[in-house]
C-alpha cells in the first residue's frame, strides 16, 4: 500500500482515473468521495466566497481576473462559456468589457457620419441603442447550486440582466452541443474538477473551430524564497482567516492543500496540448502564484 501510493498520487495529479485513490487536499479518497466533499466545501463557502477571496488575496484576485479579461480581448458578438463561474466574477467583467468596446465602436461609426441630417442620426440611435452588447452572451455554468444562487443574486444586485445565462452543469460532462462557444474560461475552478482530462476534452468539444480556451488557476512558484513565504502564508494565515471570517477552517485547509496538489504550469500545458489544442501558452502572474493558460482549437 505504501509503494502504490506515490504512483497513484502521480496519476491522480494528472487527473487520470485511479480507482479508488484520488486526492482531496492532502487526503486520499475515492472519486465519489472527492466529488461529494468538494460539493460540501462549496456549499458551505458559497455565501462568503467573495469576501474570502478579497481577504485571502488582499483584493489581488480582482486584478488577476481583469488581466484574464484583457488577454481575452473579446469583441462584441462573442459567445463566452464560463465554467465553474459560480458567483459570476468573470461573467460580469466580460459584460463590462464588451459593453465599452461596443460603445467605442458606435462612437467611431458616428464620427464617420458627420454629414447626416438629424433625422438619420436619430434613426441610427434607435437601431444601435438596443444592441449595447452587440449580441455578446455569456453562459455561466457551475456544478454547485449554491454558488449559482449567489451569482444570480449578485447579478440582480449589480444590475446585470441582458446577455447572461445561468446553467447547472458538470465540467466533465457539459450540457451543451459541439462547436458552440467562441471562448471557454475556467477561473479557479479546474483545480476542483475530479477528472481534469475529461474537463479539457469537454472544453475542446464545445468550442467552435478557432475558439479559445483560457484557464486561470493557482500554480507553482519556482522562486524558492517566495515559495517559502507563500507556503507560510497559505498554511498559517488562510485557514485562520477562513475560521474567523467564514467560520470554516476545513474548507480553507482544503483550498490551500488542493493548490499544492494541482499540476504545475508545464504539466498542465502538456495536458491541454494532449487534448488537441494548439498554440498552448501560459503566463505567470505574481511569479507563478497564478497562471493563465491559453489554447486554440484549430
Amino acid at each position, binding site marked *: 500500500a505504501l509503494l502504490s501510493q506515490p504512483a497513484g498520487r502521480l496519476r491522480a495529479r494528472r487527473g487520470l482515473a485511479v480507482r479508488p485513490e484520488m486526492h482531496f487536499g492532502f487526503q486520499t479518497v475515492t472519486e465519489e468521495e472527492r466529488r461529494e466533499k468538494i460539493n460540501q466545501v462549496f456549499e458551505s463557502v458559497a455565501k462568503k466566497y467573495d469576501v474570502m477571496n478579497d481577504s485571502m488575496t488582499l483584493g489581488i484576485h480582482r486584478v488577476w481576473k481583469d488581466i484574464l479579461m484583457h488577454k481575452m480581448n473579446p469583441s462584441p458578438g462573442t459567445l463566452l462559456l464560463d465554467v465553474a463561474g459560480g458567483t459570476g466574477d468573470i461573467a460580469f467583467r466580460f459584460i463590462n468589457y464588451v459593453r465599452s468596446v461596443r460603445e467605442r465602436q458606435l462612437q467611431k461609426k458616428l464620427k464617420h457620419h458627420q454629414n447626416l441630417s438629424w433625422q438619420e442620426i436619430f434613426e441610427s440611435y434607435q437601431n444601435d441603442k438596443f444592441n449595447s452588447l452587440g449580441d455578446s452572451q455569456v453562459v455561466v455554468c457551475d456544478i454547485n447550486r449554491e454558488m449559482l444562487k449567489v451569482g444570480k443574486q449578485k447579478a440582480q444586485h449589480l444590475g446585470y440582466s441582458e446577455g447572461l445565462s445561468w446553467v447547472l452543469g458538470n465540467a466533465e460532462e457539459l450540457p451543451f452541443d459541439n462547436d458552440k462557444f467562441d471562448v471557454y474560461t475556467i477561473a479557479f475552478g479546474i483545480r476542483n474538477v475530479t477528472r481534469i482530462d475529461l474537463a479539457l476534452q469537454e472544453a475542446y468539444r464545445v468550442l*467552435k473551430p*478557432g475558439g479559445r480556451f483560457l484557464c486561470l488557476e493557482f500554480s507553482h512558484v519556482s522562486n524558492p524564497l517566495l515559495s517559502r513565504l507563500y507556503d507560510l502564508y497559505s498554511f498559517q494565515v488562510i485557514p485562520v482567516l477562513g475560521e474567523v471570517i467564514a467560520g470554516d477552517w476545513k474548507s480553507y485547509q482544503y483550498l490551500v492543500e488542493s493548490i499544492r496538489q494541482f499540476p504545475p504550469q508545464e504539466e498542465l500545458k502538456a495536458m491541454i496540448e494532449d487534448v488537441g489544442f494548439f498554440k498552448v501558452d501560459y503566463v505567470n502572474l505574481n511569479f507563478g502564484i497564478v497562471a493563465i493558460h491559453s489554447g486554440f482549437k484549430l
Partner: protein
Amino acid sequence: VRCQHYPPLRALQASAALRRASDEHRKEPLTSSSHQHFDSPPAGHQPEQEPQGPCPSYTGQGGQESEDYESEEQLQHRILTAALEFVPEHGWTAEAIAEGAKTLGLSVAAAGMFHSDGSELILHFVSECNTKLSELLEKEQKLVQLGEAEKKPIDEFLRHAVEARLRMLIPYIEKWPQALSVLLLPRNIPSSLNLLTSMIDDIWHYAGDQSTDFNWYTRRAVLTGIYNTTELVMMQDSSPDFEDTWRFLENRVADAMAMSNTASQVQSTGEAVVQGLMGAAVTVSN
C-alpha cells in the same frame, strides 16, 4: 500517399480547419501525438516528414509535429490575408483580424492568436508586398532577357520599382500612417528593418548592381532614403493619382544620379588639384 484509414469522428471534427490547409498541400492529417486517447494509427499512416523551412518560434510542441507547425503557420497566414480586406474599415487592429477569421469560418476568438496592436498583420502585409514586387521585377527581367522589352536606364528602373511598390499601399493609404507608427515600435523594428533592407536589396539586384566595394552600402542607403521620404510624401499627397508623389520621386532619383556624378567629378578634380600642387612643388624646389 493518401491514408485510407478514417480517423475517429472527433479527430475529423477536431482538425477541420487545419485539415483544409493540409489538403491544399497534400499532407497527411494530424499525427498521432495529438490523439493519445484513440488507437494508435495503423502502419499505413505515414506522416510525410519533408524538411520544411525554419521552424517558427511557437511554444512547446516538439519536432514530431513539424507538419502541424506548417499548418498552424499557414492557417495564420490565411487569417491575416483574409483580414486585409477589412483593414480600410477597421484599421490595422485585432478587429480586422477577427473579421478575417470569421470569413474563414473560424471563431472571432482566433484573433487572440495575434498581438492586439495588429503588428503581425502589418508585417504580413509588408512581406506580401515585397514578394509581389520581387515577382514583378523578375517577370520584367525575363522579358528583357528574351528581348521582348528594352532594358531601362538605372534612374528610370529605380523610379519604376519604387512607384510599383508604393502603389500597393494605395488601397490602405488612409490607415497607413497608423501602420508606420506600429512598425516603428521597438518590438517590431528588427522585423520591419529586415523587410525594408531586403526589399531595397532586391530592387538593386534587379537593377543590375554588382558592386563589391563601398558603393554597395551607399547605393542601398541612398535608395532607402528615397523610398522612405517618398512614402512619407505619399501619406500627405492629395493630388489625383498621387502625381505629386511621383514627381517628387523623379526629382529625388535625379538628385541621387547627379550626386553620384558630382562625387566622381569631385574625386577627379581633387586628383587633378593634387597633381597640380605636386608639379608646382617640384618646380619650386628646382
